[in-house]
């Protein structure tokens, strides 16, 4: 049953299993284990980023395609929900319409980009997605009539998902039974299902072909698989899942803006999460996203403290400034691509 649920893809390491179970339990009971707005915010973010990173891994790790447009798909999903909620009024139908429309648009766009670039050379894909993603980001911030421009959009989600709604009196284990809790569990369950779905996809015959193509596309082509078709379909699935993750993010935040959904910084974050967790393993996405989001939320404070303690030394405070945290991530990123291409998961499995 459990193995079936995981599509036969076991963690294959005791340590990894423990970590994964700890993360699952932590996320499943986050509102009770870690009370407080900030930790709930972190937990929801982790759920959403696990899906986003896992969908990116389907492209990068399993198909060997580098895309820089993943935040664009993420943003399309988020703006789908935002626009639907703005124009259709608050309600679950608006959320559903926005999510489905966002996923379809993302998949269609991925299909077009894929047909243009993957047909010729897989390396074109990286450059073309970079160009298209920045064009879309510029367009979104300029079409302020539709998208709210740089300010983004604030909109209302169904009352049942807001803190104002109470579905039971009193509190349970010190947690108030309000819509925020329901919202968190909506995010958690949707993310969990999406993750299992991705796990199913990569362990299906389709996923095997993708891995074959990644290892040797020429050979896969000669065996008779249509490489372009497989790569394009993988791209479309990945884009659609990323868009749904964006929709979840929009439902959680009740706000979308270019900075939170479309910026290139998020793209870099996704890349780091995939590489640190381990490319080509879905579990890597879980570990990478969890580690990264926690580090992002709590480690930056630590850097600030460190910068203050060495303030007497020249240059060091500048290097340890919390604003320079990307510098250290960049170093970590390059080092992990060189030395641990299979990431934390590969280390734990002892295969790297």
């Amino acid at each position, binding site marked *: 049953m459990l193995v079936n649920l995981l599509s036969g893809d076991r963690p294959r390491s005791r340590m990894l299993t423990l970590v994964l179970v700890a993360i699952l339990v932590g996320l499943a009971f986050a509102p009770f284990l870690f009370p407080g707005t900030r930790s709930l915010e972190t937990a929801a973010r982790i759920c959403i980023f696990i899906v986003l990173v896992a969908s990116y891994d389907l492209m*990068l790790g399993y198909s*060997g395609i*580098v895309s820089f447009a993943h935040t664009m798909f993420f943003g399309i999903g988020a703006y789908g929900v935002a626009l639907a909620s703005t124009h259709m009024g608050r309600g679950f139908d608006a959320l559903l319409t926005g999510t489905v429309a966002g996923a379809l648009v993302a998949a269609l766009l991925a299909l077009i980009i894929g047909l*243009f*670039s993957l*047909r*010729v*050379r*897989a*390396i*074109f894909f*990286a*450059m*073309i997605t*970079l*160009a*298209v993603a*920045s*064009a879309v980001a*510029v*367009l979104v911030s*300029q*079409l302020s009539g539709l998208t709210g421009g740089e300010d983004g959009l604030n909109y209302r989600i169904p009352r049942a998902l807001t803190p104002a709604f109470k579905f039971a009196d009193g509190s349970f284990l010190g947690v108030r039974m309000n819509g925020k809790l329901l919202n968190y569990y909506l995010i958690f369950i949707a993310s969990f299902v999406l993750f299992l779905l991705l796990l199913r996809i990569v362990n299906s015959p389709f996923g095997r072909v993708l891995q074959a193509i990644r290892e040797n596309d020429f050979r896969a082509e000669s065996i008779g698989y249509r490489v372009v078709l497989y790569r394009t379909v993988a791209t479309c699935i990945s884009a659609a899942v990323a868009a749904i993750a964006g929709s979840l993010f929009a439902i959680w935040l009740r706000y979308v803006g270019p900075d939170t959904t479309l910026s*290139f910084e998020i793209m*870099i974050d996704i*890349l780091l999460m995939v*590489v640190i967790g381990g490319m080509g393993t879905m579990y890597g996405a879980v570990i990478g996203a969890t580690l990264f989001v926690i580090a992002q939320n709590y480690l930056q404070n630590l850097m600030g403290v460190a910068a203050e303690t060495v303030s007497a030394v020249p*240059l060091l405070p*500048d*290097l340890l400034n919390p*604003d*320079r945290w*990307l*510098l250290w*991530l*960049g*170093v970590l*990123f*390059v080092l992990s*691509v*060189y030395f641990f*291409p299979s990431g934390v998961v590969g280390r734990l499995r002892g295969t790297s």
Partner: protein
Amino acid sequence: MSIAPEHVPKMETASLGERLAPHAPLLLVPVLMILGFLSITNTSSWLTLTVSGLAMGMMIFIMASGLTLVFGLMDVINFGHGAFVSVGAFIGVTILFALGGMTEQPSILLNLLAVLVAVTGAMAGTAIMGWAFERVIVKPVYGAHLKQILVTMGGLIIVEQLIHVVWGPDEIFLTRPETLKGAVTFAGAAIEKYRLLAVAIGLVLFLVMRWTLKSTKIGLIVRAGVENGEMVEALGYRLRLVFIAVFVAGSALAGLGGVMWGLYQEVVTAHMGQQIMILVFIVVIIGGLGSVEGCFIGALLVGLMQNYTAFLEPKLALVSNIGLMVAILMWRPQGMMPVVKAK
């Protein structure tokens, strides 16, 4: 049993059409200019836009040429190329500030000298940096595209952050040297002097590069290496050294492009390299990876397109270039002037 047909060898020259077809992209630049003229209709604004489009195209060409050659020669795609643009701009600006006495005087000689010193400094700096980048970042990942893209992207992030550490987190505003400020009026159109200078530098650079590639021995080796690297190595040339030289030269050119771009925008930021790289990638793709001439034509097209649409419909400037790329890839999926690989 039928008799085998008699063997009649004949020499046929390719028809005029066949011989001209590879050069067809050359026509695109005038065609785009005419289209721009038809949609703008005002001669003087068209002239201004065309000159600034050409200037922008030349600067993009300077930055893109190194990238496309590096790819053609060693199959290395460097996403960190933008880092050289930013670093070049920052070094150049620092030198220009230090030479404030020379840039503020209304003497064209002193001004140009200051710019020359800044450009030389920036090029030297980025050349050294390019060498280090090649050694540290690119060398361990030869032959693996996926890792190349990831690692060079990581390199770009690190360099951008180091710029913040060295030069501070804010953008730096600068003014052009005294004699390069202002505009000249020609046929009722105001044309900025600096843009004319940029066009001139770009054109000279293109001609020098073309001459180097077509008429010198090193150019011959580079062109042969792009077409069939293994063969060149079998003939006894150390293609690795040639490659490093091209990489360093490409980085230096990116630094030059960075200084020129900084003077054009009159502001430098750590992100500028990353932003300009988007146009550079479009240029490299539509030109055909590895082709310098395709890169030149592509850069002019992108520069003109950007300026025309920015005038007609400002919101669509970048989108129009994506459209241009899509149109060209539909026409020629490998880019305008694909490099024939003997593999």
